[in-house]
């Protein structure tokens, strides 16, 4: 009996040790994953801010071989990027084949245009679909099918959306062999566009809209579900119609939640590269959609704003991808700087989402 008891106690000690070890393994895994994020960001930031190493002067060797006196300043050429690669210049220049001259401006504006148009299209469509599913739809088989379909679409690889967009928007099913030019006269301005659309901002935005719609719908549905039914019942009891209830009670109350979800899914769309590569968006582009380079420009020539959606474009992640693939010297630093700009934009968007969530969550109590 005592032997048994001893065995039990030894096993108990080991069980506790095992539990302790397991807890620490879990803890270590968690915190090292967290650490990984900072390693990743740190490595990229350091690369982007590394000053350019002074270049070895190609004529230097011959002077040694000739046995002349070695002038100290001739050994290295002065560095072109003494303050690192992530500078103001980088933000204000277009792309270039020379690493030192490459900038992100066309990518930045391209991304803003594409994501802006994506927001314009995906928010009404996504919120509309969520409203239908949450407020109107009866639990029929068809509704269930739509719901299942949406969650499946959210899991479709982004590259498949790229092929979808390429076929529908860029090629338009190959209805015409050669793009046909159209001019749409709006009185004060003529908008030039081609059909099939080709590799323009609008194609990119439409593709990203299809890609981000499922996520927008799902997050908007969650926001709508968080609104208590009593609010709707109270409004309906006062004689409001269904739409009036939604318009004046449900939507305002769920707006912070919807906005948070929308911003998060747009920030995902901003980082999407694969669909844009498949669409064939240009990577080597140094112009901005609509050639709008300043606010004054946009005010003076409002027509450019309408022309921009039908202009060629590039985007930050696309630029980064083409720089990563460029084996010539210096482009890995340019790519790191591009990633930094991309991450700053993402952090700004996510920060806005978190701010909205924090601020409005405290105000509303059901």
């Amino acid at each position: 009996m005592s032997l048994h008891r001893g065995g039990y106690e030894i096993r108990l000690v080991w069980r506790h040790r095992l539990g302790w070890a397991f807890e620490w393994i879990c803890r270590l895994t968690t915190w090292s994953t967290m650490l990984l994020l900072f390693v990743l960001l740190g490595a990229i930031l350091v690369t982007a801010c590394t000053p350019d190493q002074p270049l070895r002067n190609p004529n230097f060797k011959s002077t040694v071989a000739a046995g002349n006196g070695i002038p100290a300043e001739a050994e290295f050429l002065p560095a072109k990027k003494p303050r690192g690669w992530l500078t103001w210049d980088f933000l204000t220049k277009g792309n270039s084949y020379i690493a030192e001259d490459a900038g992100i401006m066309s990518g930045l504006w391209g991304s803003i245009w594409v994501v802006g148009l994506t927001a314009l299209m995906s928010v009404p469509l996504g919120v509309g679909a969520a409203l239908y599913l949450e407020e109107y739809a009866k639990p029929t088989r068809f509704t269930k099918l739509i719901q299942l379909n949406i969650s499946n679409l959210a899991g479709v690889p982004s590259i498949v959306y790229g092929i979808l967009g390429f076929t529908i928007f860029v090629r338009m099913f190959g209805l015409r062999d050669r793009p046909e030019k159209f001019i749409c006269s709006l009185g004060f301005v003529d908008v030039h566009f081609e059909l099939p659309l080709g590799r323009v901002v609008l194609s990119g935005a439409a593709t990203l809209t299809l890609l981000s719609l499922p996520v927008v719908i799902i997050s908007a549905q969650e926001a709508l579900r968080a609104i208590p039914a009593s609010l709707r019942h109270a409004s309906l009891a006062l004689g409001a119609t269904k739409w009036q209830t939604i318009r004046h009670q449900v939507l305002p109350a769920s707006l912070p939640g919807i906005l948070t979800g929308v911003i998060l899914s747009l920030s995902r769309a901003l980082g999407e590269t694969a669909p844009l590569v498949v669409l064939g968006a240009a990577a080597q582009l140094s112009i901005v959609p609509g050639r709008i380079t300043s606010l004054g420009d946009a005010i003076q020539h409002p027509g450019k704003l309408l022309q921009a959606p039908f202009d060629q474009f590039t985007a930050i992640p696309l630029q980064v991808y083409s720089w990563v693939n460029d084996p010539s010297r210096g482009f890995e630093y340019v790519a790191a700087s591009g990633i930094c700009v991309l991450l700053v934009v993402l952090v700004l968007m996510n920060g806005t989402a978190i701010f909205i969530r924090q601020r409005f969550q405290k105000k509303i109590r059901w």
Partner: protein
Amino acid sequence: MSNACSSRPDEQKSSLRHLMTLQWVREQLIQGLLFTCALLSIITSLSIIYILFTTAVLAWPPGKSFFQQVGLVEFFTETRWTPQYAAEQRHYGILPLVCGTFLVTGISGLIGLPAGLMIAIYLSEYASPRARSICKPILELLAGVPTVVYGYFALKFLTPYFIMPFFHGFLGLPVNGFNALSGGIVVGIMIIPMVASLSEDVLRAVPSSLRESGYALGATKFDVSTKIVVPAALSGVLASFLLALSRSIGETMAVSIAAGQQPVLTINPLSQIQTMTSFIVNVMQGDVVAGSTLEKSLYAVALVLFAITLGMNLISQMILERYREVYQ
């Protein structure tokens, strides 16, 4: 509606009824409009299937689909994938691409699934509320990092500073600058947040009465976590694993940057490979002749990709659905 109106005075009656009909029409219009929005998702799905199917499997009569030109047997049994070569050397066997894809997915699963589950167990069973409030936003950030960034990290940091010194310098194995291992590792990191948050949800959904009965029987926290909570949530955890794996199959940019562009039938993680997704990206970067077999092969590869991920998503959704019914 008309009954309610008829009880009112006559002069108001007509205008009110008029108003009610207008409102009724407006309500119907709005409902129709919102329904169209919801229908758009079905249209999207159908058009994906239509486009992939008509180009890859069965084309409208004047044109020929990919499988009408190449043949299913060659597509699934041939071991060479060389659609970009000169006409007489072209082979269309998807096996190298599938093999590359599953190599990367396998590596990512080996890294991402256990790590994600560990984090989920830590967050749901061990972590203090404070630790949770730090971990969750960081995980969200990790999930929000664009995939090109992971690709860059794999190519410029992971391969030269970790994989090369260890496998080439220490073990003396030949390592390619582009290798499946670096791609697999970053894809593994990428799916950690997904596994962690999905699994944590299902672990937390396990009723605490189960945990308490475990403690009452003298179980340690380890026993409760691994022998009660995880088995109770097993189907949900498996569903999250499936979703994560389907995501890593569809992952494109990180893999095409880090793992190279050479379709080789190999299971050596240190060699250059090509996945289905990176093939598509690689071809679409250049100009593709409309209607060429190369272009149709893109659709065929995309169809295989779509079918695999759709199947995995459907299975995991069915599991999650059943799981929800059990515990609610």
